[in-house]
């Protein structure tokens, strides 16, 4: 496996609060008219950050103090809706390397993991506590510890969850599964020929 092992992500964090943040919100559909994912970082949360005339709205992503954040903190059901990988791609290309939220929509979770971007779930109380700490001190160093299933900052330590398969693949550098899938040539043939349809 040539992919890096991701045992933890360390960096500054930005609260983007609210439940049910959908993938249309993360990357509006009109920015999906593209043949590659290049440049999507620019349009992250575009309609939440900008008015229709292009002027900035009040949003944490527009604040200079959060500009260097690489960890996003949000609410429950993050990434619900469309299966568009453009959503985690735009987060990744905008510099994000981990998301901490209440929980994640299944498809988003898989898409983000396959980019090597851990998605850690924690309780509402923990999220509120972390967010208010960040509002007070945006320079806080936050650790998303994939190995020990913890989110740490200052003297705080909060437990988090990452689905076992995803956690294992981050830890052993197999989060992009294609290489491993390709090795099962015989098994694939066998399954294909055993099916009652072609």
């Amino acid at each position, binding site marked *: 496996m040539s992919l890096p092992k991701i045992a933890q992500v360390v960096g500054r964090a930005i609260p983007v609060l609210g439940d049910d943040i959908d993938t249309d919100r993360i990357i509006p559909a009109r920015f999906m008219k593209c043949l590659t994912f290049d440049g999507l970082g620019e349009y992250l949360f575009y309609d939440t950050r900008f008015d229709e005339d292009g002027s900035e709205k009040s949003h944490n992503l527009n604040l200079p103090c959060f500009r260097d954040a690489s960890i996003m903190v949000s609410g429950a059901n993050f990434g619900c809706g469309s299966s568009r990988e453009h959503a985690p791609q735009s987060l990744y290309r905008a510099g994000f390397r981990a998301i901490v939220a209440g929980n994640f929509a299944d498809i988003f979770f898989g898409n983000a993991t396959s980019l090597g971007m851990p998605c850690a779930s924690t309780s509402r109380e923990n999220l509120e506590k972390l967010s208010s700490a960040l509002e007070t001190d945006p320079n806080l160093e936050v650790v998303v510890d994939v190995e020990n299933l913890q989110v740490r900052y200052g003297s705080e330590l909060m437990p988090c969850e990452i689905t076992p398969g995803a956690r294992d693949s981050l830890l052993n550098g*197999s989060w992009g599964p294609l290489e491993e*899938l390709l090795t099962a040539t015989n098994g694939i043939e066998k399954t294909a020929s055993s099916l009652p349809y072609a």
Partner: protein
Amino acid sequence: MNSKNLFEKVWDDHTVGELANGQTQLFIGRHLIHEVTSPQAFGMLREKGLPIRYPERTFATVDHIVPTDEVSEPYSDILADAMIKELRKNCTESGITFFDIDSGKQGIVHVVGPEQGLTQPGMTIACGDSHTSTHGAFGAVAFGVGTSQVRDLLATQTMAMNTLKVRRINVNGDLGTGIYAKDVILHIIRLLGVNGGTGFAYEYGGSVFNEFSIEERMTACNMSIEGGARVGYVNPDLKTFAYLKGRPYSPSDDKWDEQVSVWSSYSSDEGCSYDDVVTIEGSEIAPTVTWGINPGQAVSIGENIPHPDQVAKHEKAGVIEALEHMKLTAGAPIQGTKVDVAFIGSCTNGRLSDLEEVASRLPGHKVKEGLKAIVVPGSQLVSKLAMEKGLDKVFIDAGFEWRAAGCSMCLAMNPDKLVGDQLCASSSNRNFKGRQGSPTGRTMLMSPVMVAAAAITGEVCDARTVFG
């Protein structure tokens, strides 16, 4: 004690093996692709020098970006034009069947698959589109996937997956007159929440689903993902087999009986276990419309818009945000909300039976002056069959625009968009902020007949009153 549900049977039959991280390597029998989520996958394979493993198991169509009024190429939107050309090129180079614009078979991928007979019971199906759950209406296990998985599927016909829990949802009794599959699924999502299905496949059953036509089952399965469930399905039955008989990719007559018995064997066994069971009384379901910015924020037509003070503490901020975006008043009746645009179409409700049901109500009615009302058939075949029945004329006479097939104003990647804060009564599946092309645009989801009633009166109303 070896009884299994359909999900477990299909999963087991398609399991290639276990991956090092404990996930399953799952074989996907049918892979469907479209222009938005596939070009990057083809690009990744080209970069790695990998061929397409089973091109005969992948089928393509173009739906998201196609214009529905001026359909000739090149498209005026150069980005959209580049996307259709790229898909055409990728399919030609890889030997993938492409239901192109000139095929007579083009349309929304989740309408095309079933009507071509590509979707069959007991299959695994995947597509880079969350509404792939639609195909579960046939007793297939169908996953929406991301582009990296599209890449994995093109290269290996398999993907890495965690298994899902299965929640059986029984809708018992009978539905009242004027209550549709759309009302049933909106009711289910309202009840279980937009996050309630995370980690689950939904198995729908009970007398209401038994009575449903295949197209009604598709409407319900389609929106499973709006309840957080990646997969939704109904066990196959005689209606399923009758729907599939004679379709282009259905089994031939000489293999039919054998295939039907295989298909039947995938049904959930009597007495099989589920991770959860939910039971809903069909007679309690009313015409349902959304008032907010996710599909779970819905009320029945006789109810009032919720007040932030009446909901659970953690929901309060979401309700306030939704009311602000929707410009609706807390506690006010949902009936009477003024509508600017009416949209009938989408992979949820753009099939022939949807258009027939609306058209049967329209004679003698006119779309309210100043209101924009469009009908976008789900596929070229739906359009053709509807026109053979004269439905296009019925819609046009009533003041609707009759368009060409595509996703259109469901997500507005083509020129069909809301303008400013227009409010759209929509038969589609998502009411997210900005979903229909204008960041301040507003969407209210409802059944096609309810959309038509709103188009006629200019406001959200009870279609049973308008049409008698």
